[in-house]
């Protein structure tokens, strides 16, 4: 019915929404933008399900997903690919000896190029992306022209609150992207996500973990909080600790598990004089008290 280069997007929507918890609005936006032939920028903190949704979409569309991470080491040369040096010395620059980098690879196979930490890509690397997005073709010196298949898209992800080692992306690139802000899921959705990843854990523990992690996001002493990954790690670690200690309940090791799992996932405020571990411990203690849970000291 609703036909596009990805096939029936209504059908894809239905298939993907079964696999992913919540995210109806984001999924609609993503499918609308991509099937309209545009490229997408997903802006939000880590652990909000961006790659999960993308994987589900590409799987159901039967197209490849090429993932790369934006950092200073991702040079333009790595993005584009290289000639096998030994072959070059022997035969000169032959197209056959060229190894396609992630960008031309995604272009020629008609897949999504998913760039995490997009705002950490160096300028020159972003420029190569710009050409691919604007012209839908890439000129590679001494190789040839790589045309983008119709289903090729660039999906960029970035965390706007992460100011370390990042810079604003060039306007020429931003002008060619549509944007969707992705915030954390609701409490119920996060509980469901943890439940799916840690089925053997008690409901109480899951609720506690999610509550603790959600509190880290609005705490005055923390500059940024943890995603649902913190809760998943917390329950799995608490479970393991309980087994090791032969404890009666899983919640007794909650404090330790919280610090282990969440301590590194939050960032303490510059002005606060407490460490992130201390703040996490404080939050966990408070939440446990609210639930009337006995903790190990």
């Amino acid at each position: 019915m609703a036909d596009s280069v990805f096939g029936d997007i209504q059908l894809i929507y239905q298939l993907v929404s079964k696999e992913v918890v919540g995210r109806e609005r984001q999924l609609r936006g993503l499918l609308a933008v991509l099937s309209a032939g545009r490229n997408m920028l997903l802006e939000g903190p880590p652990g909000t399900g961006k790659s999960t949704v993308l994987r589900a979409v590409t799987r159901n569309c039967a197209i490849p997903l090429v993932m790369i991470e934006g950092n200073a080491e991702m040079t333009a040369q790595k993005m584009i690919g290289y000639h096998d040096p030994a072959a070059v010395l022997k035969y000169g620059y032959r197209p056959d000896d060229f190894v396609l980098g992630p960008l031309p690879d995604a272009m020629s196979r008609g897949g999504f190029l998913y760039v995490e930490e997009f705002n950490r890509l160096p300028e020159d690397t972003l420029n190569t992306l710009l050409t691919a997005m604007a012209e839908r073709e890439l000129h590679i010196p001494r190789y040839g022209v790589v045309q983008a298949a119709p289903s090729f898209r660039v999906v960029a992800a970035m965390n706007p609150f992460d100011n370390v080692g990042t810079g604003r992306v060039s306007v020429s690139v931003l002008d060619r992207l549509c944007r969707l802000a992705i915030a954390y899921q609701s409490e119920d959705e996060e509980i469901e996500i943890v439940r799916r990843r840690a089925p053997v854990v008690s409901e109480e523990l899951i609720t506690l973990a999610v509550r603790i992690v959600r509190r880290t996001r609005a705490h005055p002493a923390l500059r940024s909080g943890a995603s649902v990954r913190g809760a998943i790690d917390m329950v799995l670690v608490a479970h393991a600790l309980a087994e090791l200690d032969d404890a009666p309940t899983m919640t007794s090791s909650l404090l330790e598990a919280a610090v282990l799992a969440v301590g590194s996932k939050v960032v303490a405020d510059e002005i606060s004089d407490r460490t992130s571990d201390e703040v996490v411990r404080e939050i966990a203690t408070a939440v446990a008290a609210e639930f009337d849970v006995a903790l190990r000291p």
Partner: protein
Amino acid sequence: MTVADTASVIARERESALVRAAFRARRHVLLEGPTGVGKSMLVRELCRTTGQQVITVNATTTMTGQQLLGSHDPATVLRRGYTDSSFREGPLVQALRTGAILYLELANRLTPDAHNVLLTAMSDAVVSVPRYGVVRARDGFLVVAAANHDDTTGTTELPAAFLDRVVRIRLGHLDAAAEHTVVARSAEKHLAEPAAEQAYVPDVVTRRAVAATRATRAHPDLARGSSVRGALDLVAVSARLAELDGRLGRAATETDQRFAATLALSSKVTLSPDTDRDVESVIDEIWTDVLLAEHRATPGDGGAAWSGSSLTQSSTADPDADTAPRPDATPNGDATADPATAPPGAMSASAGGGGGQSESSDAAPAESEILSELAAETSAAVADYIATTGSTAERAASRAAARTSLAQATRMASRIVLRKVRGVRIEDAALGRPAPVRYNYGSDDLDLDRTVAELIANPVPMPSDIWVRDRVPRRRGVVLLLDVSGSMRGEQLVRAATATAAAAVALHEHDELAVIAFAHEPVLISSAQDRSSPNRLVEAVLSLRPHGKTDIGAALELGLTQLNAMRSPARLGLMLTDGVHNCGADPHRIAGRYSRLNVLASTSAAWRLKRCRTLAVAGHGWSEPATAIDTLPATLSALLE
């Protein structure tokens, strides 16, 4: 080619004529204009109609002159040496030889090296290629460069020598009617695709899309608006949203149109640095205004099915809703439920709260008493700064803090300064541009051409004979000299604090920074050995109590001793001043002892700017004006080069 590009050039008759005239007169052309305004389309279309070949080069910050010229195939060279047959032409040589147009996109990203090669070609119509020969231009060769001055990341000013050799044609955004035509034509093309038969784009959506896009260019909370691409994307995305709903042959729902506006426009605009609203709430407001205007223009018509509720909720923030400070860390966006069930206005309710509206009624009399109690001009400037630039939460906390201690207020102000500075892009110069270096067990990005050249000379190589491309960090030693004398002390202090923050943030772990503040006497705030954190530095600057005359010479002397104690190979002084000294020795002699002294001129008076320039020239450096706090970080980082 995207859908947009297949539309022929609309409403650019005058600019086309200008470019054609330049071609006839054999003048090189510089096309200047914001992104998305149709520069490359114009060039391509012109060349298509004249039948002239265009060779396009996307300038990157790593493009070397050699890449423009071309290089020799290594295998052939190894077998037969450097001959004509081993040479592979680069785009410049190809354009010269075939008499084609060399179209340079993003020309303001080119390295000086690439510029030099271009300049020779442009002025003499000939280039000399090492180990190949001389290439003369055939008739018809011309350079057309496109530059985009919105784009401040990774770009440099075009050199004067280049500007001297071109005819500059500016392209602005088209007028409303023309933009409407562009968007409508693209929708038609869309319809022409067999798979898109059901994609229906009604004229009303096109009109709204164009109106909203144009409105982004005039909104007070937006520093930069969207190009026509915003409207194009809006229309296409809303058509697909309709499809997802099974609304074949009909427009997308009102809610979906609003959603499409956010999707299409929110990345293409830049928020003003003075606002703490998020971009979604601004786009939302703009969309509502567009609907309102439409409703007013067609009275009596029920109009699009937007409900009255969206009017009250999404116009200026409801004062009652904005009592609690919004936590800074949580991103806004998905708080409301599925749009299919929530009324259209609901999204704006969550987005509109906490906006940058000032709470004028909140300035209780007690506040001014407290502030005057604190007496020192400095604290008033600090509280003032917080009051005008802090977020709702910070303002509330500042009022509380003003009752407790100046130190608290200072800490808060320093946090704001740092946050503002970090939000601005500062070219990470210390990371260095990629350059060829000998292999040192670091980067493994092989620079094949250079390595081959090395192998030809030295057939039995050591690892260090291999060339790779790596970013070369340059260790720098900087002494920051802050003039905090003079009459505008409060503002001057905030400027000094911003400069300190900018320097601290721009420099790296391995760089050295010393900070000196001066009025009639210089004060060493932090020496390079102290390695103070940005926070402490900014707080220290904000805690100063400046007064008195200005002795630039003494400050320069102290700065020199600090520089001499540093170990970095590149050492420079950076002074923030208005250029006027009224006591002490003549600073120009002392400036001359600096290997490099750059000056940030905190003045707009012409005669003072001249003083700053003469001072900088005496110090073998240069001077830049820096009055606006917002542009100060970028200017400062440019002077750190």
